[in-house]
């Protein structure tokens, strides 16, 4: 099922004071994959995403995207290459409405400056509404972002990433904080949308249920290293992984 090589990370190292957050991380991602990253807290999962998106610069190692080196590039440049990111802690524009939030992202994607047309009169408006409907946040479209409850904020955060129409989408615990009643429904539609658009995705996740359902592959982080990497069935069955991450239900 997995197509051409998309992203290739190798030998990533970074430490903060004493903490080793990445210690020779290497991971390859092929088109069409949906890779779940699991691992104990503080293992370095977010750090990995931070490196891939240019927020942190590793002491060593490289990340190639379609053969292009990403290390040293700014988050902006990397985003322009088609890599979008959703955050563990939602990053929204607090004082603008949810619809505006998403439309801004869409406009950024379209490179639309249009100094004299209203944002909500541009085609981006419809894009925004479509996306909000997808993650079923249409009801809060007119709320200012800071008014939203945590769960909704997470979803809107994902919508912003989607609005960039990325080739590769990196999501940091996309549905943590989203009520379990919606969780699955949302992730379901989300993954379908990604498939439909042919978007490859990586998502950090602590909910094994999610992992088993939606990941095509699982990578297990543990104190800055990749402890295990493979198809969900195998990896989640690995006693070591069960001991360090999953625990006995």
């Amino acid at each position, binding site marked *: 099922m997995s197509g051409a090589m998309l992203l290739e990370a190798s030998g990533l190292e970074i430490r903060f004071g004493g903490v080793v957050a990445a210690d020779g991380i290497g991971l390859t991602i092929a088109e069409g994959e949906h890779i779940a990253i699991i691992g104990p807290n503080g293992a370095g999962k977010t750090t990995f995403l931070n490196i891939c*998106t240019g927020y942190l610069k590793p002491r060593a190692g490289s990340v190639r995207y379609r053969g292009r080196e990403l290390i040293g590039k*700014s*988050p*902006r440049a990397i*985003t*322009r290459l088609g890599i*979008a*990111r959703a955050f563990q*802690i*939602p*990053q*929204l*524009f*607090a*004082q*603008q*409405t949810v619809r*505006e939030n998403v*439309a*801004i*992202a869409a*406009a*950024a*994607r379209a490179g*639309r*400056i*249009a*100094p*004299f*047309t*209203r*944002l909500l009169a*541009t085609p*981006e408006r419809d894009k925004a509404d479509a996306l909000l409907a997808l993650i079923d946040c249409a009801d809060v479209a*007119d*709320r*200012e*972002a*800071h*008014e939203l409850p945590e769960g909704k904020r997470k979803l809107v955060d994902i919508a*912003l990433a989607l609005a*960039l129409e990325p080739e590769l989408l990196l999501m940091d615990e996309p549905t943590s904080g989203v009520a379990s009643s919606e969780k699955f429904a949302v992730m379901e539609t989300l993954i379908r949308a990604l498939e439909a658009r042919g978007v490859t995705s990586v998502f950090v996740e602590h909910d094994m249920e999610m992992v088993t359902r939606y990941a095509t592959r699982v990578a297990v982080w543990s104190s800055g290293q990749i402890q295990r990497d493979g198809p969900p069935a195998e990896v989640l069955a690995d006693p070591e992984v069960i001991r360090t991450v999953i625990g006995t239900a």
Partner: protein
Amino acid sequence: MMRILFPAILAALAVYPFVGTSYVPLLTIVFAKALPVLGIILLLQAGQVSFGHALFFAVGAYTMGFVLRDVGAVDLVLLLPLATLAAGVAGLAVGVFVVRYRYIFFAMLNLAFSMVLYSLLEKFFHITGGTDGLRVARPTVLGLAMDRAEFELVLYGVSLALLAAALAAVHRLLDSPIGHTLKAIKTNETRVEYLGVSPRRTLLAFYVISAMLAGLGGALVAVFQGLATPDYAYWTRSGEMVFVAILGGAGNVLGALVGSFAFEFIRSFAAAYVGDYWQMTLGVVLLVIILFQPDGLIGLVQRLGRRPGRGRAGAAGERGRSERNAMERV
């Protein structure tokens, strides 16, 4: 409100000179000074307070002075664009540097630059006329030399027209995609980066525009007063501009006009009637506005037309605030 109120005000102001003249000079100043305020409002959208826009005001003013002194009789129609351009160039030069900074650093760097200009204007007595300033001769308009009365009338019209154009343009601009990006910088710059957009360049673009607005204002004031002095660039001037922006209300471009109007009138009446107390009067008025009308005079009008649930800072306060410093934190 831009639809109803704006045209109404314009119409009223446009016919005024035909019914009465005594406030023509004061109103001209009001219009001219509303321009830099508009520039301030622009930057406030991105959460940035410039404490140095007097710099560009002064650049505009002195450009007029220098050209008229050293080049000779240049026509107003040429002078204004010239001064605006000069301010724009200055804005670019300073902007490239300051847009890298935020909050107090942004505010203070702007202040620093304007104070540097201020000191230079003061020090280079033989070029700039020093503290006493530079006289600005009265230029021709479309080739005609005019006496004071005519010229003041013309200037009234010109300032009003320019201001109206600027207000309309900025209003559009702020609601446009790039305008919204600007506002986004205020609450979450990191995310803007992650949208593939450069906050700095966006800010720079608007910075230059605001500088040009300030410059135009300075130019108009200078020809009107026939004078350009270093304290055009002094920090309290910049403070005044921010002051007026808040007084009028930074939430809407009309705030610039309303604020400038209120400010100049309060000032001249205070000067006339409470004499030594004019400063205090202004201060008290401002306090009252901020405490009881945080979104400025314009907010009063605006409030009526606003849907509930979108209340600004005041209302959504608690969470709004914690949200804000959450944003600083996350």
